[in-house]
């Protein structure tokens, strides 16, 4: 037995994150760790990685009790973790981040830069990741950062690797590579703990599964004895369906029209339109330009040519403020950097984009803010102490819900959701879909950027596909994964 955690407890101030965390991991197994948002998965894993100290319980490593007081202690045991929220040094390069804490030296404390760069480049090349060793991390998308975290962990960890939602921002190709990496680790006899909210991953990965609910381990079993439904039932504590089917509406008037939009060299001649009542998917690989398209529409980047009209009226959107005024909302993919002010209370975040709704003549009405916040905390089931709690103290999935709630205070006409379910648990995903559906039913048009093919097949009425900055096609809602991949991947025709 590699790792044996028994009745681990962890409190943050008055919040109990873990009541009784039990987990046993053997060498050579892939152990899935499941649970709803805020169940305590990340907290438990951070204890294993030496970032937090438990308040109670026992922690055995290869049968011996250990006490890890810093991440370096965990590293010394061969434990490495891919974090849910990127813990990288933004101003350093990809290569430096991969080797951080274990930089090859030329003696006298000097860093051997060439070796750092070359070894990182080799590591990236073996996995075919769309990264370059010399890039600065702050410029990377969440997916890019995730891949750097993965490189760093596989470089570091020898006996136990923890993946905390590694694929939540990755697309198909990279996800497959992550699976391959996990497979190799298992063959090498390492232990792997894998946290995910993507049900399609369960079957292809795990040997055993442990389910946490409200800080307690409620279930452990070999994968062969579980069904997806039984796992969900243990997670939620009641039977639920994870299958969402949307009843499409007859589309209404055209609300967003994008005409030959280009932004050198990221976007090429993109035209499409969204109608009231519609949810339109936007598929593509990492780097296909989906986020860039949203940014350009929302006035964050200036397109080189092309035009945008909202509700039939041509508008020149030069800043997010003008976008909001025109009736647009953008839920960005990177909640830590662009979606939330993590050091501020939940309530501040929720009312940020539509402050006027809770103010009178520029003066805040506290009671209104409080009731609006409570309404969305309830509606989206945000697990928190109170609206005054700092947003950064929430679990990853609950932070995502706050980032969404911010745009619900006042209904916009066009919603751009960039990876809206990133890090959200199965039950809550359905709630997010229902929220999007309600917006559409209330007369909005919704664009849903997603890298998760299963949800693209469930929710949108039709799907646009991008590849290398161009729209390569449009598919009906009930298409197949193969069809989407055909349009999204670098095909022969594209290079010919």
């Amino acid at each position: 037995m590699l790792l044996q955690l028994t009745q681990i407890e962890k409190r943050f101030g008055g919040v109990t994150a873990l009541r009784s965390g039990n987990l046993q991991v053997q060498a050579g197994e892939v152990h899935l760790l499941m649970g709803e948002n805020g169940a305590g998965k990340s907290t438990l894993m951070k204890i294993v990685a030496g970032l937090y100290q438990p308040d109670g319980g026992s922690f055995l490593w290869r049968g011996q009790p250990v006490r890890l007081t810093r991440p370096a202690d965990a590293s010394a045991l061969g434990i490495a973790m891919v974090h849910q929220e990127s813990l990288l040094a933004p101003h350093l390069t990809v290569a430096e981040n991969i080797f951080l804490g274990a930089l090859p030296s030329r003696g006298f404390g000097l860093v051997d830069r060439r070796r750092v760069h070359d070894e990182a480049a080799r590591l990236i090349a073996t996995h075919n990741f769309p990264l370059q060793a010399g890039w600065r991390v702050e410029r990377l998308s969440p997916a890019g950062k995730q891949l750097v975290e993965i490189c760093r962990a596989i470089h570091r960890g020898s006996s136990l690797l923890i993946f905390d939602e590694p694929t939540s921002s990755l697309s198909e190709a990279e996800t497959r590579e992550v699976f391959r990496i996990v497979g190799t680790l298992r063959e090498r006899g390492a232990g792997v703990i894998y946290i995910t909210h993507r049900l399609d991953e369960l079957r292809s990965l795990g040997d055993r599964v442990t389910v946490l609910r409200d800080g307690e381990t409620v279930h452990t079993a070999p994968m062969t004895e579980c069904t997806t439904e039984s796992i969900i039932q243990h997670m939620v504590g009641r039977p639920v369906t994870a299958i969402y089917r949307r009843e499409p509406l007859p589309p209404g008037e055209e609300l967003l029209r994008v005409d030959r939009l280009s932004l050198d060299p990221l976007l090429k001649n993109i035209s499409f339109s969204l109608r009231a009542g519609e949810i339109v998917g936007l598929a593509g690989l990492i780097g296909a330009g989906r986020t860039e398209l949203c940014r350009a529409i929302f006035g964050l980047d200036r397109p080189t040519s092309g035009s945008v009209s909202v509700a039939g009226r041509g508008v020149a959107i030069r800043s997010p403020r003008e976008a909001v005024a025109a009736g647009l909302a953008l839920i960005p993919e990177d909640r830590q950097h662009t979606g939330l002010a993590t050091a501020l209370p939940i309530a501040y975040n929720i009312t940020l984009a539509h402050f006027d709704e809770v103010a009178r003549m520029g003066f805040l009405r506290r009671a209104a803010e409080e009731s609006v916040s409570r309404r969305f905390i309830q509606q989206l089931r945000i697990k928190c102490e109170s609206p005054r709690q700092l947003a950064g103290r929430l679990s990853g999935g609950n932070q995502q819900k706050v980032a969404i709630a911010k745009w619900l205070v006042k209904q916009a006409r066009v919603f751009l959701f960039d990876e809206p379910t990133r890090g959200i648990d199965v039950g809550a995903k359905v709630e997010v879909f229902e929220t999007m559906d309600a917006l559409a039913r209330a007369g909005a048009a919704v664009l849903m950027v997603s890298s998760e093919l299963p949800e693209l097949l469930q929710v949108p009425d039709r799907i646009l596909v991008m590849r290398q900055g161009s729209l390569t096609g449009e598919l009906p809602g009930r298409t197949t994964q193969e069809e989407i991949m055909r349009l999204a991947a670098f095909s022969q025709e594209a290079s010919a």
Partner: protein
Amino acid sequence: MIQRLLPFLTLIALFAGLCIASPHFLTTTNLSSVVRQTAVINIMALGMTMIIIAGGIDLSVGSILAMGGLLGSMAMERGLPIIPSVLAGVLTGLICGFLNGLMTTQLRINPFIVTLGTLGIYRGVALMISNGLPVHNLPAGFSYLGEGAIAGIPFVWFLLVVCAAAVHILLEHTKHGRFAFAIGSNPDAALYAGIPTSFHTVTVYTIGGALTGLAGMIEASRLMTGQPTAGQGYELQAIAAVVIGGGSLRGGEGTVIGTLVGAFIMGLLANGSDLLGISPYLQQAIIGAVIILAVAVDELRKRKLG
């Protein structure tokens, strides 16, 4: 909770300690003088609180104070009545602050660098305008601003209370204040939420400048001179007041009450050292140590909460 109240408790302990240690402390004259001495730093620190909350910093406040005091005094010397002259001093500060804000947002230069630059520029301009000479010929009535009293309470005390209340309301109850917190906490998230970040950033520096201009006029009134060399080193005291009061140089954190407490802690330390005959050299070291201590305690509190 205890730790959040720590600056406050420190202030009370300091006050009580000084009452016991020196018979000259708890007298109207002494307390009035403490209030008068700290009012200048206090009013500057109020503006600094807003700037720091919005994720900025203003190192040029000492020079702005000199500019405001000098130009206001020169206006009076040339015959402008007192109240318009005081307003001229405030306006001077306002313009200096506005320029700081404009440069950080439009040239996208780190405010530390911009205001390090304007610290030199404003000081240089003040010295050039005045030829380096102080302005002495001020109307006697002007001394009321810094030295006057209503029913025995220093006039500046009322000014301070009004400014503090205004800044508090601005920060905690208005859109502008909320946006300042958001910009300081995460400028990108604020931008993505459709907040006109540049506008609000410039506003914060402008208000800070105006308050500093007022502080400059108070300083000039207390000395009955407009000095181009006034206010040197005040920026550090203003920043220290904010930080002791729980403000964070990372932005997004700070309160008016905290800043006032911070400024009074420093004021009492200075006053107490004078009364007890502690050398002014040691005084500086004590204040320095208090700053480090205050921040260390604050960080500890945050770490404990994870």
